[in-house]
Every structure is written in C-alpha cells, then in structure tokens.
C-alpha cells in the first residue's frame, strides 16, 4: 500500500519538474510596444504618488504620463531592467512592487523565513517534550474500571436510542 502511495507521489513530482523546464518561451509580435508590453512593466511598479496602487491600474493623470514614458523608453529600445532601474533612481525604492533582496530591505524576506523555521523548530521540541513525558509515565493500561452491570445495561440501551 505504502509503496503505491510513494510511487504515485514521486510520479507527480516528476511530472511537475519536467513541465517546468518546457514552459518558458514566447514574446514578439507586431507594433512592438503594445499596451500589454507597457502594462507588463508597469505591473512591477507602484505608483510613486498614490498610496499603494500598482502603476498598471492607477488612473491618475500622472500615472498615465508615466505609462506613456515607459512606452517611449520601450520604443527607444530600453530593456525592462533599465526602465525599472530608471524609475527606482528617479522616485526611490518605493516604486518597486516586490521589495529588493539586498541591504536592509532583505530583512522583509528573511524574517518570515526565520520565523517559520523557529516555529517549526519549537513545534518539534514541543512534540518531543510530549513524547518524553509519555515515556516517563509509561505504565500499562489500567484494568477495566468496574461498572455496575445494571447501569451498564441501561446506558447501552439508551445509547442505542440516540445513535
């Protein structure tokens, strides 16, 4: 039984891994900087002025201008990274939707991982503690606790009624 289960799980894993590698491609097409190309980049940026709004959905005039700017930059042949870097230099790190993984900002990524690891470790410790206590108590199960036969019969009868 267990072997079948393990087998099917590993099969699953292989399927996932094999498709991972094959699924990266595409791009190109007519009229190069389409709205979609612009949005793809704008999505990774946050509006520098509005609170917590991604640039691709922001509707203010300023944001429309920024999107137009991205389009111009794409036309001039800038790469995605260059455009994003430009925005970071110009407006600061707050335009990045995904915080950087360097410097002080990396803490935002690291701490949750540490927390999860510490949590898992603590849970493990607790489990072991529970087990150890159990080992110490040991002992065999106690003998049947005596119950009056008449009462027992009545309980079983009433139990049957509510099942």
């Amino acid at each position, binding site marked *: 039984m267990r072997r079948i289960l393990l087998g099917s799980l590993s099969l699953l894993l292989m399927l996932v891994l094999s498709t991972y590698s094959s699924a990266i491609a595409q791009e190109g097409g007519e009229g190069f900087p389409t709205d979609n190309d612009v949005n793809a980049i704008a999505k990774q940026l946050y509006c520098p002025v509005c609170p917590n709004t991604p640039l691709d959905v922001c509707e203010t005039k300023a944001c429309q201008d920024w999107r137009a700017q991205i389009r111009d930059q794409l036309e001039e042949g800038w790469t995605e990274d260059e455009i994003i870097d430009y925005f970071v230099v110009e407006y600061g790190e707050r335009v990045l939707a995904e915080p950087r993984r360097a410097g002080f900002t990396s803490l935002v990524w690291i701490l949750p991982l540490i927390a999860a690891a510490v949590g898992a470790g603590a849970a493990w410790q607790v489990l072991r503690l529970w087990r150890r206590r159990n080992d110490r108590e040991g002992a065999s*199960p106690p003998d*049947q606790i005596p*119950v009056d036969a008449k*009462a027992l019969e009545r*309980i079983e009868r009433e*139990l049957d009624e*509510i*099942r």
Partner: protein
Amino acid sequence: MDLGAVLVGLAMLVVTVVVLADPFVKSSDGGQRAYQSKRGLSARMKKRTGLWALRDLDFDHELGKVSEQDYKVTRAQILQETAAALEEIEKDEAAVEANIEEEVRNLRRTARESGRYCHQCGQAREQDDRFCTACGVEFKMAETLSE
C-alpha cells in the same frame, strides 16, 4: 440645548438610576446567596453528555480515529462517570418520591390538626372568622367551631 432634549435626557437618567439601583433596593437578604453557586453540571446533564460522548467515541472508533487502547480506557472512564450520574439521578428520584410522601403526610396532618388554615387557599385564619381573608371562601360552621 433645548428643553425637549433636556427632559428626554432627564427621563433617561431616571430610568438609568432606577435600573442600576434596583438590585440594592430589592430585599437584600434573599439576594445574598453565595455568588459561587451550582458547580459543574447537574446529574441529568452529566448523564446526557456522557451518552453523547460515548456515541461520539464509538463512532470515532469505528472510523479508526481512536486507537484501540485509548478507546478501551476512555470508554470505561466515560461509562463509569455516566453510571455515577445515573446512580445520582436514581437517588435523586427516590429522594423526590420520599419527599412527596412526606409532604402529603404533613399536609394531611396540618389539615386535621386544626382549622387554623383556610381549606381552600391555606391562608391563616382566626377561630371566629366566617370568611377567608385571602380568597373569601365561606367557612362552614363545623370548621369555625373547630375541635
């Protein structure tokens, strides 16, 4: 602030004070029962929870959610508790029976002992009363004369 609002406000204040003060005004001797009352569940409740617990346990066991050993131990334990509750209930019932008998006997005795109480409502009466002061029933001559 206009008069209407002040008046409504005063009314609310009065109601508030009355409701808050109410428990203190009410006869304090009756209310002085110890705050810590009824501990735990009554026997009947215990029996019922016990039965429910047994049913759950049996079903969990059937589905393999409780190990064999746990099942035995836990079941025995709940059975014991439930049996204890049953016993308590039976005792209680017996006590109630006895009580009823006792009460009836008492009542009979009081009624026989004297005509000092109204035969209809139980209000105390004077020997020479012709009517009950509480319910107004007329006492018969025999009763008025008494033994």
